[in-house]
């Protein structure tokens, strides 16, 4: 079979692509051409669901990396409970589904011409584009916190080398040291994530370095599953974790990587290990496509996940402003399937049905102690809002067996979702 993209490349991409509108070409093959940028929990789920809902669609997934490294459960890697290999997934399963894979970064999107440009010079035309690049860290938001500084003060908020760096720093720390976590203001990837990390680091310190302390400097006054976390901290790690909220001077205003210090309005904290989770924004390609607003995130229309800023482009996962839905892998996967159903419907000329979405996020407070938050969402007033009366957190008072069961369900969730997305 002749690969249209190869021909384009050979013949001089720009000239030919201008002469032959790609979507028209694609349609002659079947139902329509869908390009997905980003093969994470959102993008990979969406590509697969598109093929499942309408096998005649030509689906191309554009992903910068050949191996995906999952953030969920990466806090377990940091404290030695899991191996990094358990976090890594390839794309063979997607190829077997008939999805065309392009391992290159998308560098530009032309919404008028409906074309995506890749770092390797390739050009892809589309009828519908899905933008699912996850997050980028904002290197301009916290004075002193540059990409270089992150080599001394890891964020570990994109799993991979950063996760291993934080793991090594913790392992090398002497007993009696202070670990400092700087947590960002909302919105950010994985609202309970910093507190799960704090819990598991506390477990590690209690087990291996019991004279050490953990300090959380927070740019907000409340956080996800707060009462559950704080209850568990009192029970499991008394006097080990200190949480400093915004109103008590918790917001970090600058850092100095050379001396491992974090500065707030009230104090300067010297750390033995510093984990700085900086403010974030939608992955850069979202800006280049013109789908991000001034907040740095992407406003969407909640039935189809279409951008409210550019026609023909859908945004899902962490990059999207999804109302009450948190930036989680569970939410990204649920949005991806709803978005795929909408795209299949739009291309087939079917009326769209209002989706109903679910999120369930587990956090481990200790290896055998799980807690959860859940929500059910529906579109209303141009946003995704909570279905009233549903959702909420695990009971505040519960026997240890319930916490154990939730830890097992957390494990089951990770296996199930990664098999659905990458298996």
């Amino acid at each position, binding site marked *: 079979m002749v690969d249209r993209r190869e021909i384009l490349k050979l013949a001089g991409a720009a000239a030919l692509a201008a002469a032959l509108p790609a979507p028209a070409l694609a349609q002659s093959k079947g139902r329509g051409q869908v390009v997905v940028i980003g093969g994470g929990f959102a993008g990979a789920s969406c590509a697969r669901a598109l093929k499942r809902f309408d096998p005649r669609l030509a689906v191309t997934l554009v992903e910068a990396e050949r191996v995906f490294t999952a953030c969920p459960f990466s806090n377990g890697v940091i404290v030695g409970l899991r191996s990094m290999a358990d976090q890594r997934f390839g794309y063979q399963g997607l190829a077997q589904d008939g999805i065309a894979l392009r391992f290159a970064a998308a560098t530009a999107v032309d919404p008028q011409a409906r074309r995506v440009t890749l770092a390797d010079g390739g050009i892809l035309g589309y009828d519908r584009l899905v933008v699912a690049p996850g997050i980028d860290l904002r290197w301009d938001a916290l004075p002193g916190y540059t990409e270089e500084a992150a080599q001394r003060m890891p964020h570990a908020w994109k799993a991979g080398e950063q996760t291993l760096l934080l793991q090594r720093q913790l392992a090398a720390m002497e007993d009696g040291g202070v670990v400092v976590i700087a947590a960002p203001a909302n919105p950010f990837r994985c609202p309970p994530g910093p507190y799960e990390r704090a819990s598991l680091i506390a477990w590690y310190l209690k087990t291996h370095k019991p004279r050490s302390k953990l300090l959380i400097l927070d740019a907000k006054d409340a956080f996800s599953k707060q009462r559950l976390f704080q209850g568990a901290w009192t029970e499991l790690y008394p006097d080990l974790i200190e949480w400093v909220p915004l109103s008590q001077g918790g917001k970090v205003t600058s850092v100095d990587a050379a001396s491992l210090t974090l500065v707030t309005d009230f104090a300067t904290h010297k750390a033995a290990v510093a984990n700085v989770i900086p403010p974030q924004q939608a992955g850069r390609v979202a800006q280049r496509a013109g789908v991000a607003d001034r907040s740095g995130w992407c406003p969407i229309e909640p039935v189809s996940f279409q951008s409210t800023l550019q026609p023909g482009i859908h945004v899902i996962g962490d990059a999207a402003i999804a109302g009450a839905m948190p930036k989680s892998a569970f939410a990204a996967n649920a949005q991806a399937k709803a978005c795929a159903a909408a795209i299949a419907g739009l291309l087939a000329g079917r009326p769209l*049905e209002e*989706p*109903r979405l679910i999120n369930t996020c587990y956090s481990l407070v200790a290896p055998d102690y799980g807690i959860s938050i859940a929500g059910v969402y529906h579109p209303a007033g141009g946003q995704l809002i909570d279905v009233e*009366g549903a959702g909420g957190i695990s009971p505040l008072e519960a026997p240890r067996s319930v916490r154990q069961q939730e830890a097992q369900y957390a494990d089951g969730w990770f*296996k199930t979702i990664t*098999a*659905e997305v990458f298996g």
Partner: protein
Amino acid sequence: MEPVKAALAVVVLLVLAGGDAAASGPPPPPGATACSGCHAATAGIVTPVPRLVGRKPADLVAALQDFKAGRRPATVMDRIAKGFSDAEIAAIAVWYGEQRPERRR
């Protein structure tokens, strides 16, 4: 569902969709696809979370209604079932009853 009935259902849906339904069956009703984040739809996964694919719709409806009413012990399903109307629960149950586990090579 017996093979004959299943085949009939597919035919009916193909007709309803103008002969245009995807080869893999009818579009899932609202909410249905979100369940497989936890309830494995792919074969060969070992998890304590029960499967929904291929279950009798009546059993699924009964379980969801019991979760919704707080009659059945739960960790998280009580919180989730409350987000669905009786009609939505029925539609999801019927759809799962018609699905078969996806085989991954």
